[in-house]
């Protein structure tokens, strides 16, 4: 399990988990679960398009993820956010269907782009992944305070001069960057599970944003490591263990929160309690 060819797998899986845990914290806080699902899934159409014209997969993914993110931001300003997300997603997937129908040999790769092929990571893929991952983390670190502010108290943030829409755009671009980094390795669906489930679980345990983010990363890492080990032993797809494991963790978190009787954790954003107290 820890043989030479598995080193890349462990590295890639860990990097994905860290980025997904951090970005996912904001996705959950902002109620952007749909965006976290739509951008990775839609971006895979870009990979199909890139294969059609002979460009690199990561380039196609990046272009589509970015276009999707900007499209969601633009449409979301003029209409309902979930409608904008759904429409951006189906347009990207419609294009994906077109690209796939035009290329002949691409069909087997769809499965791996959707569900991931983490055991086939090459050393050359690790470099770009690490760069994009560090960029995502740096962006989150720089934007941390205003992003948190607009996520929790949009009206107050607006009154204090933070541009909510600009922050939304920044957040979408970060999700897009995280997507282009992770989808070639772990697949669109796995990326989504890793963004939502650990962050959702972490919120059942703590109210403090930084603690929740750290916990989210820890849960994501634990989920991925356990999943890689289990997948290695059973040969079953990694996505199964991550998806079901994430849901189990979330269920446990909710059970714990209910057991503690901490209603505030479930129904209020983290700093909400502080604000109402003050």
């Amino acid at each position: 399990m820890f043989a030479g060819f598995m080193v890349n797998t462990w590295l890639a899986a860990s990097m994905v988990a860290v980025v997904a845990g951090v970005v996912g914290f904001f996705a959950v806080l902002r109620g952007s679960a749909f965006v976290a699902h739509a951008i990775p899934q839609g971006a895979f159409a870009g990979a199909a398009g890139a294969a059609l014209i002979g460009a690199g997969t990561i380039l196609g993914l990046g272009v589509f993820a970015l276009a999707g993110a900007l499209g969601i931001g633009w449409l979301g300003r003029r209409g309902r956010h979930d409608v904008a997300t759904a429409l951006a997603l189906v347009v990207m997937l419609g294009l994906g269907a077109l690209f796939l129908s035009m290329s002949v040999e691409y069909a087997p790769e769809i499965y791996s782009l959707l569900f991931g092929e983490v055991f086939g990571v090459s050393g050359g893929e690790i470099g770009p992944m690490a760069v994009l991952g560090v960029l995502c983390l740096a962006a989150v670190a720089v934007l941390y305070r205003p992003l948190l502010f607009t996520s929790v108290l949009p009206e107050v943030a607006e009154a204090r001069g933070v541009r909510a829409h600009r922050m939304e755009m920044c957040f979408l671009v970060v999700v897009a960057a995280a997507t282009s980094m992770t989808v070639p390795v772990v697949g669109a669906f796995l990326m989504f599970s890793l963004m939502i489930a650990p962050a959702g679980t972490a919120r059942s345990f703590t109210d403090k944003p930084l603690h929740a983010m750290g916990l989210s990363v820890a849960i994501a890492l634990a989920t991925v490591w356990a999943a890689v080990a289990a997948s290695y032993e059973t040969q079953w797809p990694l996505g199964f263990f991550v998806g079901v494991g994430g849901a189990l963790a979330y269920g446990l978190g909710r059970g714990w929160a209910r057991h503690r009787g901490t209603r505030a954790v479930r129904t209020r954003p983290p700093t909400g309690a502080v604000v109402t107290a003050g």
Partner: protein
Amino acid sequence: MSGILRWVFEPGLFGSAAVGVAVLVGGAVAVVSGTVGVLTVIRGQSFAGHALADVGATGGSGAFLIGLNPLWGFVGVAVVAAGIMESVGVRRPRGRDLATGIVLGAGLGLAALFLYWDTTWSNTTGASMTVLFGSMFVIDGSTVPVVIGFSVFVLAVVVLLYRMLLLSSLHPDLAAARGVPVRLVGIGYLAALAVTVSLSAMTIGAVLSTALLVGPAATALRLTKRPGWAMAVSAAIAVAATWLGILLAYDSYYWPPLQRGWPVSFFVVVLVFAAYLLTHLPGTGPRRAPGPVSLVNTRKEA
């Protein structure tokens, strides 16, 4: 004149049994999706609508595995998933989206496993492709009565629950005060939604299912204020987009670059999206969409 007609409707369009089935099934699914979609958009549950289509695909691949008719897998799993979403979901939209996401994640994980078994044991590489994108021209003729039966059932549920659904969608507290069983109505609606999207996901693919559910309804709600009218307009847009998409796909058989037809889902998605964008031109749709968005806006102004 006949030359133009011949150019628009490729010869053989009306004689083809596959096209006939596609028009029938596509039309029925479009009417139901358009109608249910209006409620989905008002309630802000587009994500649930999309997630149920994807999760239904899990059931489809599971049923495929044990040799059951995929339809029952689709509908059964989607209804169960809808029940879980509603029972986990908190009433705040953010909590509800999270619950939807968790169910979707678990469903996709199971789908990965089922598809893996499908491909290793029964050697059907095309399974993941068909489940995602569907294929309108290869619908089995025998599913037509089933699809129409389910469509009538869903429309009946919507008509029966119409007033209660609308009230509990727009003003949950008022509805509760008036004695409407909000929770029960929500579950009934989500079940209807689950049947709708799993039906459309199975016949025309998960992509088109979401497109027809959300696009026409959002367009219609920009055009008219009254929910009843919006449902009619939305169903009309959905049917028009579907049939036009089928026509274009049939015509595209002779288009470059491949001479083997562009996918229907591409055309329908583009048509639906174009209709939505048209309502966003300056000077159209001056009013705000009903529901949480307008509530948020008024609160901001107050």
